[in-house]
């Protein structure tokens, strides 16, 4: 199985390298075929590996020794277990759908060869991350996906907004990585290894150990470790307050919004926390922080989706909110529920993005929902699949999102972790918000009056099959995957060898004997169902029956509305404090510290002497090299002998 796992990773890498280096010679068709073949091989192998894993196969093996430092071997190696095998399949499947879709979406773009090379490279890096058996490789993959994300957000590099968004994404992620790398340093220091298995084996011994941070400040080792690693997860998975890069990342082409900024890369932080569950169960304080930050992100980012008018930004805010849900689930130590929601979300959110891309194509790259409306009759396939995605997103009973999200919310309600009650309320409110923004988007785009101009309307037509096929490919799991995975993931023993069970109350205990069918039937018993209906009701009222009503509400809530439009002012604050502040500080240190104090005061005497020497030298400056050389060498010799003779 080791070589299989290796090929899962290598196939997209090879495709990326060949098309990246020789793409212009290969041409478009061959580039498409090569990259799709690469990721298809990877997808098929992932499926096969998952089957083997279901049969009990496991793999935890090094590939090569990256370095030996301080007596510790740092290795590149693979871990194939239920968690990584499942995620590898999700990643390769969504990636395959996005590859196919991009043939259509990027058809008119002169840079599409570069684009295909990038998304294959991304798939490689993401798999490297998911299949790692150690922190080093995890970090390599982590930064690798960050790099490709940077390159793809700035794909249209002549657009200043795109390159600004790319830089912002990289820098905000780097703030997360700052915590992550310190967390890794801590892991190495306290466990003497970076391999998961060895680290997890040492974790129980560290319970109760404290680290002295100076100033009489003692912190539990596992708490600090968990928090530092979570800072990394906050960057990648865009949790408040490191969320600001994700909405701007929509500057990139829509297919990568689906692949990277919805389905896979942004969930890497969720994966990280789940993967480290054997560590986190011993760090309840860290779990509380994760729980609270996750639920805050779920609620407050969801609200921003209600006021956004750009279709991609609505979905981006929705992604932020759903990532918050996943984190909250993990924080409640319902690790399986968090991962379950990651999986269903990967399918339905990628579907929503790709369907939105199909709308954008039809609208000639118009993304403002205020200029859409009534599109369902022009784009029937897109509409139907978008509807499936939307229903999954609002957790309509029977759709995949229902199984994962409602189970997750239920688990948070059961959790004894501090802050769980607060988080539970926020998550419940978010159900209403989710339904509101989702149906608002659905109605503004596909229903109601047609608000586009006549020229656009004349050219409206359904997208070609390369675009609609991936929509159908993703709609099927968005419908079905909840039914299939509900019991094995939450009740069964599928994750027994991957995810730790909490030490105290298991918030998922009630799912042990619950089938998907029974959970489906109990939908009417949960408050979430009615909150969702309430959101639907408001959306129907405001966006179908009384379209003039939302504007009145917005006007009535003036300052609040403006604050929401500005995303609570995070961007403004960071620009002023982070960007402008850094430049100011840099300029101060340079002009004042370097030039005035060091050069001006300390080197001043010397400097004036240099000036004098300079005037002297102008007389000596004859332009003949050998004269310089001769003078220098003789001076050196004289100096050396003078020094020698003196002693």
């Amino acid at each position, binding site marked *: 199985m080791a070589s299989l796992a290796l090929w899962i990773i290598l196939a997209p890498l090879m495709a990326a390298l060949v098309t990246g280096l020789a793409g212009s010679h290969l041409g478009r068709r061959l580039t498409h075929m090569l990259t799709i073949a690469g990721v298809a091989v990877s997808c098929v192998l992932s499926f096969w590996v998952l089957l083997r894993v279901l049969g009990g196969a496991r793999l935890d093996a090094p590939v090569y020794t990256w370095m030996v430092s301080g007596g510790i071997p740092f290795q590149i190696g693979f871990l194939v277990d239920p968690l990584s095998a499942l995620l590898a399949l999700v990643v390769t499947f969504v990636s395959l759908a996005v590859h196919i879709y991009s043939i259509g979406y990027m058809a008119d773009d002169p840079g599409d060869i570069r684009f295909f090379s990038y998304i294959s490279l991304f798939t490689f890096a993401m798999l490297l991350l998911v299949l790692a058996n150690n922190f080093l490789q995890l970090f390599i993959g982590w930064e690798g996906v960050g790099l490709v994300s940077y390159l793809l957000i700035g794909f249209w590099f002549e657009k200043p907004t795109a390159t600004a968004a790319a830089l912002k994404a990289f820098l905000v992620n780097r703030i997360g990585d700052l915590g992550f790398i310190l967390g890794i340093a801590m892991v190495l220091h306290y466990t003497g290894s970076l391999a998961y298995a060895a680290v997890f084996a040492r974790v129980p011994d560290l319970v109760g150990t404290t680290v002295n941070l100076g100033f009489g400040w003692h912190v539990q080792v596992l708490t600090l470790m968990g928090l530092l690693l979570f800072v990394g997860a906050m960057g990648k998975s865009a949790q408040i307050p490191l969320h600001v890069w994700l909405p701007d990342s929509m500057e990139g082409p829509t297919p990568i919004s689906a692949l990277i900024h919805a389905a896979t890369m942004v969930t890497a932080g969720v994966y990280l926390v789940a993967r480290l569950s054997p560590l986190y169960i011993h760090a309840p304080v860290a779990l509380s922080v994760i729980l609270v930050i996750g639920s805050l992100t779920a609620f407050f980012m969801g609200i921003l989706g209600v006021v956004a008018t750009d279709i991609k930004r609505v979905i981006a805010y929705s992604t932020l909110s759903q990532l918050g849900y996943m984190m909250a689930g993990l924080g409640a130590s319902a690790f399986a529920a968090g991962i379950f929601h990651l999986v269903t979300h990967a399918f339905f959110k990628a579907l929503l993005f790709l369907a939105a891309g199909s709308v954008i194509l039809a609208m000639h790259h118009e993304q403002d929902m205020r200029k859409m409306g009534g599109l369902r009759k022009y784009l029937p396939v897109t509409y139907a699949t978008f509807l499936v995605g939307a229903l999954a997103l609002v957790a309509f009973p029977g759709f995949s999102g229902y199984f994962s999200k409602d189970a997750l919310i239920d688990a948070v309600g059961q959790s004894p972790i501090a802050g769980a009650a607060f988080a539970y309320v926020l998550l419940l409110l978010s159900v209403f918000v989710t339904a509101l923004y989702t149906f608002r988007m659905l109605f503004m785009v596909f229903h109601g009056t047609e608000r586009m101009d006549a020229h656009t309307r004349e050219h409206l037509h359904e997208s070609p099959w390369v675009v609609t096929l991936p929509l159908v490919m993703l709609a099927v799991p968005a419908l079905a995957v909840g039914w299939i995975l509900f019991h094995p993931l939450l009740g069964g023993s599928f994750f027994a060898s991957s995810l730790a069970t909490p030490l105290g109350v298991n918030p998922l205990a009630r799912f042990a004997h619950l089938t998907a069918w029974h959970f489906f039937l109990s939908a009417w018993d949960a408050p979430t169902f009615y909150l969702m209906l309430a959101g639907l009701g408001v959306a129907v009222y405001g966006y179908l029956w009384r379209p003039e009503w939302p504007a009145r509400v917005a006007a009535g809530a003036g300052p609040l509305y403006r604050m929401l439009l500005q995303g609570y002012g995070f961007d403004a604050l960071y620009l002023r404090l982070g960007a402008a502040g850094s430049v100011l500080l840099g300029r101060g240190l340079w002009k004042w510290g*370097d030039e005035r104090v060091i050069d001006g005061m300390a080197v001043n005497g010397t400097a004036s002497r240099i000036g004098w020497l300079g005037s002297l030298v102008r007389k000596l400056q004859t332009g003949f*090299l050998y004269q310089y050389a001769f003078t220098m060498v003789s001076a050196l010799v004289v100096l050396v002998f003078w020094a020698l003779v003196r002693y």
Partner: protein
Amino acid sequence: MIPASFWLSFLIWFPVASGLVLLALGSRAPSFARGFALVTSILAFALSVVVWIGFRDGTASMQFVERIAWIPLLHVNYHLGIDGISLPFLVLTTFSTVLVVLAGWRVIEYKQAAYFAAFLLMEGFMNGVFAALDGLLFYFFWEAMLIPMFIIIGVWGGPRRIYASFKFFLYTFLGSVLMLVALIYLGQRTGSYDLLTLQRTPLGLGTQIWLFIAFLLAFAVKVPMWPVHTWLPDAHVEAPTGGSVILAAIMLKMGAYGFLRLSLPITPDASRYFSGLMVALSLIAIVYIGFVALVQTDMKKLIAYSSIVHMGFVTLGFFALFFMAGASAIEAARMGVQGGIFQMISHGLVSAALFLCVGVLYDRLHSREISTYGGIARTMPVFGALFVFFAMANVGLPGTSGFVGEFQVILATWVANPWWSLFAALNLVIGAGFTLWLIKRVVFGPVLNEPVAKLVDVTMRERLFLFLLVVPVLLFGLWPSPILDVMRASVAHLVHQALATKIPRGLGP
């Protein structure tokens, strides 16, 4: 016992002799000069690779040793030898010289033969520094290498070249004179200039402190460490591309190499005494200079400041070793030193590449100002991709060599003090800030104006030297083991020396 050989002498004197030959006949046959220089530099590189292959890992003892009495009266020997620490730098030197010859191939028109001769002379002297095991020989090469660099900046430099070359020369020369005094003191006191002997000689703390300060002034200027760094941006800005490459790739390594060869093993107790100061200066270099780099408007200055930041990691890795505590203290100390040395090598490759990239742009539009450029990814796609690649290496992206050293230093520093580790790791953000902001303004964005629109992409020659750098940056990023394995035993030995005390028993300081 390792048999005496001529390998190291050849690596030193072959380039020097070739340089002299070029000087002698250069102006008569200018087209012959660059070919001759290229062949010489490639031969020297091949030779250094042979030395690498012949080098035995796993021992800290000196190899390829040559020892001849030079000035018997003063006990000065012509004593050469290399260990696992110096070997990578020999290869880096010969490799960089090949690049510099390629980079100057068409660009240098004025006194071409002399230009190449200067680089060959410098190559020999720099090899001499890395191979010298005698204090005075070390000093001889140390000063000798300044001369060609002084001339390179002063003759082929920019408009303020005279000011810059003198600032460079005086700054570094004043520092190193004190090193000479220290070495002579040691030689008089022990009757030997042999570095290995001096490393074993017991010294009182007071003596060690004075010696350490003398060494520090020489080495801190070269590294350069804050606050004696201000010569570097000026020197880089005025130096021709080749000069910047050698300055950044090799000369900046001399100071750090001096810490490894002289300060830590000869004055270990004083090194411990000053280690807090050294760590503080290193952290200031990383954070303070990082912010200064952010606001530079001149590309070369920006990369020069970036060099100071990266060298901060080097000195941090070296001097944090005195603060390691707990069961894994020795291991962490080794990791820090090893990380620092790896960072030196990686920085040699990456900064060379970045200066060459700026050179490529400068040759076209004769400006180093960031604001001259914008949107070159459209007109120079291959170059843009390479520039972004090297920028990512500068940012320390895993998979490039830039990651390996920083990673080890950050991991090791945690053991010494978590807060230092945090300060050092700030470079993850600040370094990405100044490097990628540069990229955003120069490479990306709309095509700025007519001159940028008319830019032509890299030529085959430019591609060649840039690709030659892509290979090691990527290779040692994906697989750093070859370099680390070579130096492991020597690093362990050095850490052992640094942590042992040399203060004689029963004697006060």
